[in-house]
C-alpha cells in the first residue's frame, strides 16, 4: 500500500519534536561530509601524513576554519576524515555485535531453561566489567589497530543487545498470537523468525541508532588512551589527545575535534530518541 510517509502518524510524532529533526539533520550532514570527504574538504591530502612547514600551528582563520596542527595540516580536513573513521567503526561494530546479540537474546528468551541460564549468566559477566575497561584490556593483549579496536568494542557490545532482546522476547513469547501459532504447530524457528523477531525490530532499530553514537563514544575513549587507531590515520579522539598537550596555546587542536565527536554522538542520540517516540518502543 503506497502511503505517503510524511502524512502518517509516525511522521507526525517524529516531526512534532524539533530535536528529532535536528538529530536527523546532523546525522545526514555528517554522513554526507564523511562520504564526500575528498570533495568537500579544502586539503584532502592532509588526511594522511602530510607536512607543510609554512603553515604550522596556525590559529583558525578563513583559510583553515579549525586552524592547522603541528605538521601544518588543516584540522578541518582531518576532522571530516575523522568522521569517516568514526562512522566506519560504528557500522562495523554494530554489524558484528547486533546479529550476535539479537540471536543470543532470541534463543535465551525463547527457549528458557538451561540455555537461558547459561547465556544470561555469561551476559552478566560481560556487563560486570565496564565496557571501556574490558575493551582496554582486550586492546592490551592486541596490537592497537583500527580492526582490533573494532573487535574489542564488538566483544563488549553484544551483551547489551542480548539483554534487551532477551527481555523483549520473554514478554512477546506470552502474547496470544505467539501462543496461537504454537498451538497450530508452527516450528520454533518459524515462531522466532516470523513472529517474535519482527516485533523486536522497532526496538532493535532504535537501540542501534542510539548505540551508533555510544559506540563512537567508547571507541573515541579507547583512541584517547592511545589504544585505538594509530597515526597518521585521522581519528578525532587521537587528535583531542595529541592536541591536549598543547593547551592552552593551541586550543583549536583539541577543542574542534572534541566538539566534532560531541556533535555526531548528539545527532545519533537525538535521532534515536525521535525514533523511540515515533515507534513507541520502551527501553
Amino acid at each position, binding site marked *: 500500500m503506497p502511503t505517503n510517509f510524511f502524512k502518517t502518524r509516525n511522521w507526525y510524532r517524529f516531526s512534532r519534536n524539533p530535536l528529532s529533526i535536528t538529530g536527523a539533520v546532523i546525522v545526514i550532514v555528517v554522513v554526507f561530509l564523511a562520504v564526500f570527504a575528498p570533495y568537500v574538504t579544502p586539503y584532502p591530502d592532509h588526511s594522511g601524513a602530510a607536512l607543510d612547514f609554512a603553515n604550522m600551528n596556525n590559529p583558525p582563520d578563513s583559510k583553515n576554519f579549525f586552524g592547522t596542527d603541528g605538521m601544518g595540516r588543516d584540522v578541518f580536513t582531518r576532522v571530516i576524515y575523522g568522521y569517516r573513521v568514526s562512522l566506519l567503526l560504528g557500522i562495523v561494530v554494530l554489524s558484528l555485535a547486533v546479529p550476535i546479540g539479537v540471536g543470543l537474546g532470541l534463543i535465551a528468551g525463547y527457549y528458557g531453561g538451561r540455555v537461558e541460564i547459561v547465556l544470561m549468566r555469561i551476559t*552478566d*559477566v560481560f556487563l*560486570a566489567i565496564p565496557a*571501556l575497561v574490558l575493551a582496554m584490556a582486550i586492546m592490551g593483549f592486541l596490537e592497537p589497530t583500527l580492526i582490533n579496536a573494532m573487535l574489542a568494542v564488538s566483544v563488549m557490545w553484544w551483551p547489551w543487545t542480548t539483554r534487551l532482546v532477551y527481555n523483549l522476547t520473554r514478554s512477546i513469547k506470552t502474547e496470544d498470537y505467539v501462543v496461537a501459532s504454537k498451538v497450530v504447530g508452527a516450528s520454533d524457528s518459524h515462531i522466532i523468525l516470523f513472529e517474535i523477531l519482527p516485533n523486536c525490530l522497532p526496538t532493535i532499530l532504535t537501540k542501534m541508532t542510539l548505540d551508533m553514537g555510544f559506540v563512537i563514544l567508547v571507541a573515541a575513549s579507547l583512541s584517547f588512551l592511545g589504544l585505538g587507531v594509530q597515526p597518521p590515520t585521522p581519528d578525532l579522539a587521537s587528535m583531542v589527545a595529541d592536541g591536549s598537550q598543547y593547551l*592552552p596555546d593551541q586550543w583549536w587542536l583539541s577543542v574542534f575535534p*572534541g566538539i566534532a565527536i560531541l556533535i555526531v554522538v548528539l545527532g545519533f542520540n537525538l535521532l534515536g530518541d525521535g525514533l523511540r517516540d515515533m515507534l513507541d518502543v520502551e527501553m
Partner: protein
Amino acid sequence: MPLTKYFFNRIWASIFVLFGVSVLIFLIARAIPGDPARMALGPRASTEMVEQLRERLHLNDSIPVQYYHFLRGVTEGDLGMSLYTKRPVVQDLAEYFPATFELVFFAGLIMVIVGIPLGILSARHQDRLTDNVARIIALLGVVTPTFVWAIFFMLIFAYVFDILPVMGRLGETVEPPPHITGMYVFDSILAGQWHTCKDALLHMIMPAAALALSGLGQAARLTRTNMLESFGRPYTEMARAYNFTEVQTSMKYALRPAMIPTLTILGLDFAVMLGNAFLVEEVFAWGGLAQYCVSAIFYKDLNGIVGTVLVISMFFLLVNMVIDLVVAYLNPRIRLG
C-alpha cells in the same frame, strides 16, 4: 526473613559473576597469541631464562591447570608480580585504587545530588522552559565524551581563568597527608590537616565534575522518564484528589516508586562511570588505577591488566549490592517477599 534471603542471593550472584569475570579475563589473557614470558623478559633474554619463567608462571601447563593456579593465587590474595612495577600486583592495586575510588566517590555524589533533582525538576515542568533547559543539560552530559569535558574544564577554569589547579591530586608544595585510607581528602580530615584537605578538594573539583557529567545526564534522564511514568499512575491522581501539595505529591508519592527503576538502571550504568574514570585520570594525571592500567597495557603486563579488571569489577559489583539494598528498602515487594 525475606530481606536477608534476598541479600544472600545477591551476594551469591555477585560472587558467581566475579568468578565468571576471572575466567573471562584469564581466557582473554591466555588466548591472545604471543608468549607472556618472552614479552616480560624482552627479546634479548636467553631461551633458558624464558623457559624458567614459563615454568614458574605455570605457562607450560594446560589452560585449566593454569587457571587453577591463578584462582588459587587470587583466593590467597596473590595476583602475581607486575612486570611493569616489578612488585606484587596486589600491592600496586592497594596503592592506586584509593585515588580512583576517591575520584569516583565524589563524582558519584555529584551525579546523585545534581542529576536526580534535575530529573525531578524536568518532570514537574514537562515540556516547559525549565524542562527543556534541564533536558539539554542532561543530553549534553550524556553525549559529550568525558575526556572532552575534562579538557574543556581544564582550558576554562585552569588556563583561561586560573581559578583551579591544572592537574594532579595535590599542589606541588603540599605534603600528602599521612597514609590511612590512601584517599587524600579523607586522610587529611582524619589527620586534621585542613590546609591539605582544602587543596585536595580544590584538585578534586574539575576531575570529579568532568567525570560526573555523563552519569549526571543519565541520572536526570532516567529520573525524568520514571517520574513521568509515576505521574501518569492512578496513585498520583489519587494523591492529587486528596489535595496533597504539589511538593508532597511529587517528592513523596510519585518520587519513591520512580526511584526504584531509576536506581536499578543507574547501578548498571555505574560501569560507564568507572570506565570514564580512566579517561579523567589520564587528562588530569591523577595517578590512580588508570595510569597503572594504561602503563601495564603498554608493557604487556598481563598480571597488572588482569588485576585491574578484577578490582574494577569487584568495585562495580559491590556498588550494585549497595544499590540493591537501597532498592530493597524502597520497594516493599522485595523487602517483604
